[in-house]
């Protein structure tokens, strides 16, 4: 990652990328694939993010949700929640977007070597952890078992449904739940901590990577610790307002941490205070 930093010419200037594909995931979420216009393909580590810019609409941090092992298309799953994200989600094939990055710390897969990988995600939070699953599938001998515990609001708001089924086929223990559903849903209805409570995991062997809304991460981390995982084996990805992504604008500060540079991925012991002190 520091090599990527050293090679970066000006972290404030966007690189141009063209949209080469778009898939609608849910009513308000799209996955875009992007190719660079005049730079090398962007190499990244799972957990990192880019600042994505739509002409005249603004710029937002978006996790990279593609395969870190494949040099090639840049993949971003974006939820339209404001002006900039709506403009990005609106970008058709051939449209140009600006990209600065990658920024931030990665999911420490090395800490999970020889251990069971437990991916815990909620809502759009499945996007930043998908690269972990790709990495595990690419190097199965490097890790123990793999579990994906995923929760969403309703069945039609789940991301990557087809892929979740494919991962099951490939031997990953995938468990999915929704907050509420109609009777045509045959899956689980409940919350992610309940999935954690019943997951077939060995707390001594497990390393968990947790990503989703902050309240969901808080309850999930508590459930993981309740199961007996060691705090230093629980990692979360934090989100804060970001303008520069290089630690100079100050917006993303969380206590002493610059989330863009010291995070977004943090170990539980490092960041647990952020979940306890209100409005920190």
């Amino acid at each position, binding site marked *: 990652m520091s090599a990527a930093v050293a090679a970066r010419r000006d972290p404030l200037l966007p690189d141009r990328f063209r949209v080469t594909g778009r898939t609608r995931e849910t009513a308000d979420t799209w996955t875009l694939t992007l190719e660079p216009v005049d730079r090398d393909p962007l190499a990244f580590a799972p957990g990192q993010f880019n600042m994505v810019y739509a002409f005249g609409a603004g710029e937002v941090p978006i996790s990279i949700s593609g395969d870190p092992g494949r040099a090639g298309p840049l993949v971003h799953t974006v939820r339209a929640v404001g002006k900039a994200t709506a403009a990005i989600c609106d970008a058709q094939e051939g449209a140009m977007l600006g990209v600065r990055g990658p920024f931030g710390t990665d999911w420490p897969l090395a800490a999970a070597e020889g251990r069971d990988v437990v991916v815990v995600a909620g809502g759009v939070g499945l996007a930043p952890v998908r690269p972990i699953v790709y990495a595990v599938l690419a190097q199965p001998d490097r890790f123990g078992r793999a579990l994906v515990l995923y929760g969403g609001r309703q069945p039609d708001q789940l991301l990557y449904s087809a892929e979740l089924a494919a991962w099951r086929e490939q031997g990953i223990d995938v468990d999915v739940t929704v*907050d*509420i559903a109609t009777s045509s849903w045959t899956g689980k209805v409940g919350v992610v901590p309940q999935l954690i409570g019943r997951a077939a995991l060995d707390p001594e062997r497990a390393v968990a990577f947790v990503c989703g809304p902050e309240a969901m991460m808080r309850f999930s981390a508590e459930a993981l610790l309740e199961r007996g995982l060691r705090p230093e084996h629980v990692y979360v990805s934090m989100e804060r307002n970001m303008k520069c992504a290089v630690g100079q604008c100050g917006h993303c500060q969380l206590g002493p941490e610059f989330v863009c540079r010291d995070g977004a991925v943090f170990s539980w012991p490092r960041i647990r205070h952020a979940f306890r002190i209100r409005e920190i």
Partner: protein
Amino acid sequence: MKEMEELVAEVPVLSGLAQAHLDLIAGCAQNTRFDAGTYLFREGDPADRFYAVRQGAVALEIHVPAREAVVVETLHTGDLLGWSWLFPPFRWSFDARALEPVGAIAFDGACLRGKCETDPELGYALMQRIAQVIIERLQATRMRLLDVYGVEAAT
């Protein structure tokens, strides 16, 4: 084929109960099976029993006019299903539908209520465990009230 006492002892929420109490409870228990798609009970039915799911999945549904029925929770292996047997009017407050073939232990509500009346220690121990389940379900329900995955804040 396991004895009912053994099966009852395997129910997670009853773990740690004294053997004598487990035996008392087993005396009110019997095995049941439900095909996928069938209802274990419906809202308004007399709630004369409760269940411990041994295998399969059960959807708790609430019927809403002019809408598809809403699944408010699903229960799975090891979960306790039903507490309407505890207090009058002893009527189910939702539907329960087997999502897949379900094997469950059914406990006779009147039988157990009687035994709890005559053996307060059994009553207290059982109520403690059931209260624990209710608290966990309530907390999970509250988490869903937060609507953390929604775009707008829930309030």
